[in-house]
């Protein structure tokens, strides 16, 4: 039938195909599980169902809304239409300030309460995260 070389090459191609399919499958599956969606306070307010998974919320930190105790920081994220209360335990970035853009990652408790696990840093005072910009643009 076929020579040894052809068989070997055939085997090679099959192995490559299998690994390819397998890795595509793995990647897609874990993308599905580990992707974090971004929502604005308005989207959360109007959504029919609350997201159980980890999400990101972005907008402005409302004026005079930051309050801080020994183990908790509370503040309000607003997109000037709707707002959401955030409680957070953890480190804050340098540019976390009232009336500045912010992105918080964490879990929704209900429509008005968000428990953040991470607050994202920015490097530039002129820079506004694109999501926040988009969320603000809708006002």
């Amino acid at each position, binding site marked *: 039938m076929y020579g040894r*070389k052809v068989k*070997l090459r055939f085997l090679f191609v099959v192995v490559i195909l299998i*690994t390819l399919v397998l*890795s595509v499958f*793995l*990647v897609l599956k*874990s*993308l599905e*599980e*580990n*992707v*974090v*969606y*971004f929502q604005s306070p308005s989207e959360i307010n109007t959504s029919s169902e609350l997201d159980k998974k980890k999400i*990101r919320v972005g907008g402005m930190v409302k004026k005079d809304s*930051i309050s*801080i*105790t*020994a*183990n*908790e*920081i509370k503040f309000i994220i607003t997109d000037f239409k709707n707002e959401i209360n955030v409680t957070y*335990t*953890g*480190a*804050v*970035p*340098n*540019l*976390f*300030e*009232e009336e500045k853009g912010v992105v918080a990652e964490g879990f929704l408790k209900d429509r008005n309460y968000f428990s953040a696990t991470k607050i*994202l*840093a*920015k*490097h*530039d*005072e*002129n*820079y506004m*995260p*694109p*999501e926040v910009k*988009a969320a603000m643009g809708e006002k």
Partner: protein
Amino acid sequence: MLYSVIGYYSLILGLCFSLILIFFSVRNFKNSKLLDTKILSFTFLQFFFVVISFLSLVLSFIFSDFSNETVFNNSHTTKPLFYKIAGTWGNHEGSLLLWLFVLTLFILIFLLRSKNQPTKYKILTLVFQQIIIIGFFVFLLKTSNPFNFLFPAPEEGLGLNPILQDPALAIHPPILYLGYVGSSIIFSSSLAATSLNLITKSWATHIKKWVLISWIFLTLGILLGSIWAYYELGWGGFWFWDPVENVSLMPWLALTTLLHCILVLEKKLILTSWVIILSISTFTLSMCGTFLVRSGILNSVHTFANDPERGLFILIFLFSLIFLSLFIFFFFHKTNKDTSASFFWLSKETSIIINNWFMMYFLSVVLIGTVYPIFLDVLSSQKISVGAPFYHKLIIPFLIPFLLMMAIGPKLKWIKSNLEDKIYLIILLAISILLSFLIVKNFDTNFLLNTILISSALYLFLITLRDFFIRKNNNISQNIAHFGFSLLIVSILFNNLFSTEIITNLKVGETFKSENTKIVFEGLNQRKEKNYQSIIGNFSIQNSKGKIENMLPELRIYNQPNIVTSEADIKTTLISDKFIVINLVQSKDYFNIRYQVKPFMIWIWFSVVLISFGGLISFIKKKV
């Protein structure tokens, strides 16, 4: 003012030389005997003008010439001289000029260093390189001219983003770009060699030097960026799977794969098409990196405000380069049929090929994680982000076979071999499993996975360590690099497993107490520097053994632009780093405090230095 004019016209002259060079090369390609000296002098002149242009931008920065828009946007008179100079490439326009500078420098060195290569090959490489150079010239002049005038000239500049005012980040871009741009030579040269059907063992030996040099710089460049992120961002880590970090990792993965394939090609003249594809993709990924970072498309916490319209140009340029290279690859590349025959499954080349697969897999994971959010945003305007769990989940399980292959692979011989000294291999494996079992036992983490992971990393560690002492025919550079890699993985694993963190908010005078640690916020000191004011927190930290350490994290309030940055205080020992960073929240009395104990941090840095040192030795040593 004067510098801007000189700089601008030097750029145009440099572009002219590109066109002249291409014109001459194409016209005299057939009878290329006379061309050598002429081409060399033109290339030198081009390099000279780019240097002039670059220097005039540097001088504009040094003398704070605010009639230059780039200087105005990124500098300030109160900035220290060092950061005035570093500010030259701390911005979009300047960093592109730096790209161009390195591009012309490298092609000049290439021509000088490859005297004994065929002339046609040299000329063709030059032509491809000039195509890239022209692209950058046009990009620079059309969309991001570093020499735009401002009239009337402002009194004072806007200042450089303070987090960039840091020694590690000042030299990070040039080092990284040396790596990126080095891959352009590999790209041009492999295209030239393909068109002339010159992919031979001697070509492999010749291009290996370039692969090594860009690999060394890329490795060091990534290291510098990582060190900077560790102490300046105050996130208490060294790698965050942030898109901007990922785009530098991707060319590194491709380049590392290429390095190994070149070695196979040099010995055996197989994998030729694979080498070409890798050369093309390394450079493409480097370009992509620049494109993604500079166009503002990436949704990254590292992103700096910039102009998305520039992205379109790079994108078009990038696609025409890819198209050109694929065209050449498919139409000119001929595979040598007779050489692919002698393959045996248990040989060095098989193990290299298998590890290539893993590298390509890691590369695709990083690539997908980085670009998928962009595509989804374009297609459905849904905003998502892909974080560390995605990468960890997909990469960590495959690290185990990867490490094992890396341990056993170099023990094999070319073509056909039996494993030598099997007993040692098995004994070492048993030792590493036992060791990691003992280490992981005391911690209630994911037991099985961690044991296997640490075993395989330790296995590689022990094997490479042993190789330093026993092998006669020692490939010392490979040994050092692989040893460094195993040290890196071992340190990262221990670092991840055994790091501890305390985050709390404290007022001055308050004390935080946990089981093992007592943190006392003793007081605040203030200091005034030339361009910032600093607030220094005074902490005394007592660990479980009762040893008290004083730590002084700092907050810097820069005056122009008005930004607060945190300077972490880090106490480094051979075993672990103690890391503390503070932050003031909205001028309330509370300070946000993050305190971490991170084991083996210094070994992570050291191992990466070792890895590139391995490359350096291979670069220096004469052919064995």
